[in-house]
């Protein structure tokens, strides 16, 4: 049985993928999981996550969810860290442009589906929109209890005392709850859920949101959902109520207040400015004529840049 391997010959020139990459069979399986998730808000539905052409941990869950609900008429907005043109958002948007050929946009109001990692747009979403979250670790109890067998039991029995033990420890040690992102919530009075590593600043947005929220964790093979207008309560104590972080200053570019800001280091002498994390929101405000305290700064001109790159889009 020696001799040269009989290599199979391929026509490497061909190669067509199905609309939005996944085959229809797989999409149906994922849509079933999504429907189950919607029926049991906040419950993590196991699903047979596929191997995707991007690495686990880089949005495979979100991409599978988006691929399964995407239609030819949809308009997709892809953001990472609040911004449309961060590297991975660019990469994932390119994936759907290539495999589905759907329209994409930077404008929140124009999108029918928004896929996001770590942020929720500042502009409130509508009933005719869906937001898809990329989730790295879906299990809110994971760092208190590493075993899947045990955490599933704890969810089933609503055995969530341990969650408050952690919050208690935060207050006892720091005087306040020290969780700043992936802040646990209780959905519809039943399941404790991890809203993905969004800053807790965004937690109020997921409470009674008009849009359908879908959460996909590819590596951990879980999908969960929050239907429109569902009560979502951030865990807290009566005498230490949940509160979001506040920024002392408005956006340096557009002057927006009560929005989430990124800190931008300008030089090595402590120079810094704060700008909207939601880049589309910021641009829209500036287009409307709003200016922030640092808008005239040369650094701001660089950061604010022009409009989105038009090349190849």
């Amino acid at each position, binding site marked *: 049985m020696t001799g040269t391997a009989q290599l199979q010959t391929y026509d490497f020139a061909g190669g067509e993928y199905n609309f939005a990459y996944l085959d229809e069979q797989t999409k149906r399986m994922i849509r079933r999981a999504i429907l189950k998730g919607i029926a049991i808000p906040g419950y993590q539905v196991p699903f047979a996550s596929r191997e995707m052409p991007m690495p686990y941990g880089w949005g495979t869950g979100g991409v599978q969810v988006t691929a399964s609900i995407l239609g030819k008429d949809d308009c997709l907005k892809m953001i990472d860290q609040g911004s449309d043109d961060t590297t991975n958002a660019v990469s994932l948007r390119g994936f759907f442009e290539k495999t589905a050929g759907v329209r994409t946009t930077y404008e929140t109001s124009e999108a029918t589906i928004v896929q996001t990692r770590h942020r929720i747009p500042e502009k409130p979403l509508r009933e005719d929109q869906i937001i898809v979250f990329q989730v790295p670790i879906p299990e809110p109890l994971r760092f208190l209890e590493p075993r899947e067998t045990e955490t599933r*039991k704890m969810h089933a*029995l609503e055995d969530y*005392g341990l969650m408050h033990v952690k919050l208690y420890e935060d207050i006892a040690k720091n005087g306040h709850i020290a969780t700043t992102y992936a802040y646990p919530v209780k959905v519809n009075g039943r399941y404790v859920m991890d809203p993905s590593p969004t800053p807790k600043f965004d937690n109020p947005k997921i409470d009674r949101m008009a849009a359908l929220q879908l959460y996909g964790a590819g590596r951990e093979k879980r999908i969960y959902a929050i239907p429109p207008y569902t009560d979502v309560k951030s865990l807290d104590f009566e005498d*230490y109520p949940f509160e979001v972080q506040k920024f002392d200053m408005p956006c340096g570019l557009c002057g927006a207040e009560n929005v989430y800001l990124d800190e931008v280091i300008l030089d090595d002498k402590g120079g810094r400015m704060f700008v909207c994390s939601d880049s589309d929101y910021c641009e829209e405000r500036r287009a409307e004529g709003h200016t922030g305290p640092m808008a005239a700064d040369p650094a701001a001109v660089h950061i604010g840049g022009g409009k989105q790159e038009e090349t190849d889009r």
Partner: protein
Amino acid sequence: MKAFQSEDPLLQVRNVTRYYGDRIGCANVSFDLWPGEVLAIVGESGSGKTTLLNCLSTRLAPTAGAIEYRMRDGAMRNLYQLSEAERRLLMRTDWGFVHQNAADGLRMNVSAGANVGERLMAVGERHYGNIRATADDWLGRVEIESDRIDDDPRSFSGGMRQRLQIARNLVTQPRLVFMDEPTGGLDVSVQARLLDLLRRLVADLGLSVVIVTHDLAVARLLSHRIMVMRHGNVIETGLTDQVLDDPREPYSQLLVSSILQV
């Protein structure tokens, strides 16, 4: 000793048997436990007393037999027919379990306050100030200084850990507490203090207790009634003073005399 508080037993044990493969762990154990009663199960290691305790506390399913418990609503329920949710609720509200090794019963990486407060949070208490005040009160009752409330038990001595474990169990006012050699592994002087504390708490709270010990002095100090076990069987049962002062079975006599000689 205080008279028992009720006509109805709290726990009814009938023919409980547990095999390990073809080896007997405990066989045909039957007894009733009354509200406010402290029952000591004594015997050498390997006598089956820990197996029995684990069966009673739903930590180890018996091979045969029935264990019924009077729930807070007065109804007798077969423990092994409870749902997992009911069983967990029982274990974190109406019951306590004090392990010989405190580390098995505590969360070693969270503070003393959180250790005591966990059960309260598990049953829905959501006021940090109240939880902390209750924890502080219980630390006082088990003679742990208030300023240790934010320290974690890793920095505690063996005796303190054991007292913390007791506070953690008693904070929800349980009616039944299981104890597995609670004074084992402690220095004699520390043991004496702990026993004194336990006796006071049990009397004050009117607890029912099933305590496993190989130390007859512990049984004499804490219990109303004694069950002597050997090779998995109960060989003698009776009021504590009666069994210890006038044991009938030769094995019990040996056990008692060996202790008295020490």
